[in-house]
């Protein structure tokens, strides 16, 4: 079983983000870079799939610049077997279409039974790349899942829908994307970190995967026009309610509707 994890390096969600002078990108000097949290869930799930299956390997694939190697190495330290970086300066600012197509082009050369991606990268919040990859490879996609199981060449997944869950199934190979609750990502242990340090991360150029059309980058379909920092309002609210149960209901409503965190 060859499981591929699509992984992106993103600014730590605790980093304080400042907008660069061009108004459309962020200052990166003091940003701390981490593995996109949804991709950590993907790495964990991939490891569990291989462990359950008894054989196979987990390959981590990322498209970006050299520094993304540290993110790949974090995945190797969790236990992934191999890491591949498609490396090109132009990928730093690539739009979702370009990124999706680049990953798909590489995947055409890498054997895969299952592709697991984070539901979205917490920096751009586009939710698009996994779908573009699936489309380009003509694979089914089961997005935002909280559970999966594999049997007889099929993958069965649970998705959360308004007020309940839905069970969906597809033939492998397929693309799935992760939701919080799918698993608790494991910690990297020190011996595994030592081992991961010594592993070689394969590097692929765009040429090598057959991407020669520069217009993908020079003439992107989507351009970031400007970025704004949200108005800081850190004032708290006191949740009203006559009984504890009512308070809890109101709190849930605030979290869901106002804060939109659950």
């Amino acid at each position: 079983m060859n499981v591929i994890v699509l992984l992106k390096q993103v600014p730590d969600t605790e980093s304080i983000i400042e907008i660069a002078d061009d108004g459309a990108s962020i200052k990166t000097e003091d940003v701390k870079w981490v593995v996109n949290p949804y991709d950590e869930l993907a790495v964990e799930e991939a490891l569990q799939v291989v462990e359950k299956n008894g054989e196979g390997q987990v390959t981590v694939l990322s498209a970006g610049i050299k520094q993304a190697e540290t993110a790949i190495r974090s995945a190797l330290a969790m236990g992934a077997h191999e890491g591949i970086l498609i490396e090109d300066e132009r990928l730093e600012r690539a739009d979702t279409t370009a990124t999706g197509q680049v990953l798909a082009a590489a995947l055409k050369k890498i054997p895969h039974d299952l592709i697991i991606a984070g539901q979205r990268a917490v920096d751009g919040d586009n939710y698009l790349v996994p779908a573009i990859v699936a489309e380009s490879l003509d694979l089914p996609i089961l997005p935002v899942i909280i559970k999966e199981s594999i049997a007889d060449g099929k993958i069965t997944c649970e998705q959360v829908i308004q007020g309940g869950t839905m069970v969906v199934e597809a033939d492998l190979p397929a693309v799935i994307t992760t939701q919080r609750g799918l698993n608790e990502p494991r910690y990297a242990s020190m011996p595994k970190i030592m081992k991961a340090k010594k592993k070689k991360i394969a590097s692929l150029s765009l040429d090598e995967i057959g991407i020669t059309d520069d217009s993908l980058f020079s003439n992107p379909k989507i351009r970031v026009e400007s970025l704004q920092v949200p108005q800081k309002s850190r004032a708290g609210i006191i949740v009203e309610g006559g009984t504890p149960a009512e308070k809890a209901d109101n709190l849930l409503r605030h979290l869901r509707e106002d804060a939109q965190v659950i």
Partner: protein
Amino acid sequence: MTTERDSIEFDALFVGGGVSSLAGAIRLMQMAKEKAMELEVGIIEKGSEIGSHSIMNPIALQELLPDYDSLNCPIEQTVRGDGFYYLTRKKAWRVPMVPRQMHNQGFLIISLARFARWLGEIAEEMGVNIFPGFSGQEVLYGEDGKTVTGVRTGDNGLDANGKAKSNFEAGIDILAKVTVFGEGARGNLSKSLIEKLGLSSQCLPQVYETGIKEVIQLPEENFFSHNPVNDIHTMGYPLGLNVPGGGFLYQMKDNRIAIGYLTGLCYEDPGIDPYDLFMSFKRHPFIFDIIKGGRVVEQGARTVSSGGHYTIPRLATDGAVLIGAAAGIHNTPALKGIHVGMKSGMLAAEAIAEALEKKDVSGASLERYRRLLDDSWVHPEIYEGRNFAPALAMKGMKKWIHLGAQYLSKGRGIIDPLPLDADYETLRVLNTAPTETTDNMDYDGSLMVDKLTGVYLSKTQHREDQPSHLIIKDPQLCIDTCYPTYGSPCTRFCPAKVYELETDEITGQRQLKLNPSNCLHCKTCDIKDPYQNINWVCPEGSGGPGYTTV
């Protein structure tokens, strides 16, 4: 329950990835190269990234990496001129003579976080294994119960009740021929090691100051744009002259400044809140004029071990050494610990390389480190300040007579050594009923921020569902004894609102509520709590402040 633990071995393990350890590890790799030895060297750092603004005497850096400039050392500014001011409530008087220990002209202004990151990269290139996100939780001893054999790292994946979650990962035993404790001021393992082996039985108690710092972004046109002075120190308001402490302000790059306030933890008044003092300092007209129009971009807090020479413990024992601020190596009159900390790490490395070569890592063999330190420039620097902390802790004229005599006699003063009390012993009993903490300062959320916004700006984070890393030995004592006697000073001395007093809605019972996830790892509570009822241990790896520039 016994847990299966992995173990891993190193020749030398540095606990804590601060500047002292990093300089030590680099020096050790240099020595290994000179001696053609193969050494496995590791550093564990509890923070998730190796890493406040400081003025650094470059002497140790010049010795360690003479070509630091071409290696792109991140230097913010060079000190152009010092300003030393005495503040009254409304006015500032420039002290015409800056004490000789505080001449900083030509020294480097650095961001300690950036500088440490840079040293970390150099160390890694030389082959040092750095493990960010791993905390030392326990010192491991050999069968004799006194030879240090390494440290055990903290467990990951425990829930708030201490039960293992599905991703539980037991801490591992890191075994090392020599373990180097470079945990900074009041290191939790250093504390237990010093206690267990009696390493400071011949010493005066260590004393501390709590510093709260900020980085402020100023408008393009600001005080420093045309000022020969870019390094300001103050004494006086708001703390007054009885308690040690004072303010500082340095220029950084890109119209940013570092500003901070230190409060000596030997204070007596349980009502003191170091954070409020810092806010009052910022509101002083002289200071406010410099920072107006600015915005706080980062905040942090940390204690400094300021006791000096007579408080430094024995530095070597079987299988282990103590370096830097963890050992109280600090030049108190100059307010500087970086260069002496780095040098202590470097000299420890020299002694370790020789001990490993001779295959003798006993305390007697590692003791050579202390001799090297005593023969280096560190000793006269620290020795001159040997009676400074006790004199500073005095009140009224006495203080100035002692300080004056010390200034003229290169530190000896009138009594040598002067006695010193531990910080937890100095609080006086509240003579009024305890007041609930008042938070009535006006904060604008931008230049003046409250404690919780400060916590946010420190980028501190801890996984919520984990056991508390602040251990209250006897919670009842907090309510029954401490509250009526001192009015729960923890609710004030903590700069991050970790401690709150709550009254149960139904029973009307008071209780202490902890918010460990706010913690900035400054360790003030562990030091100042009058009953020594609070024990600070490392939280799960990677937790803690995420300073990038302070």
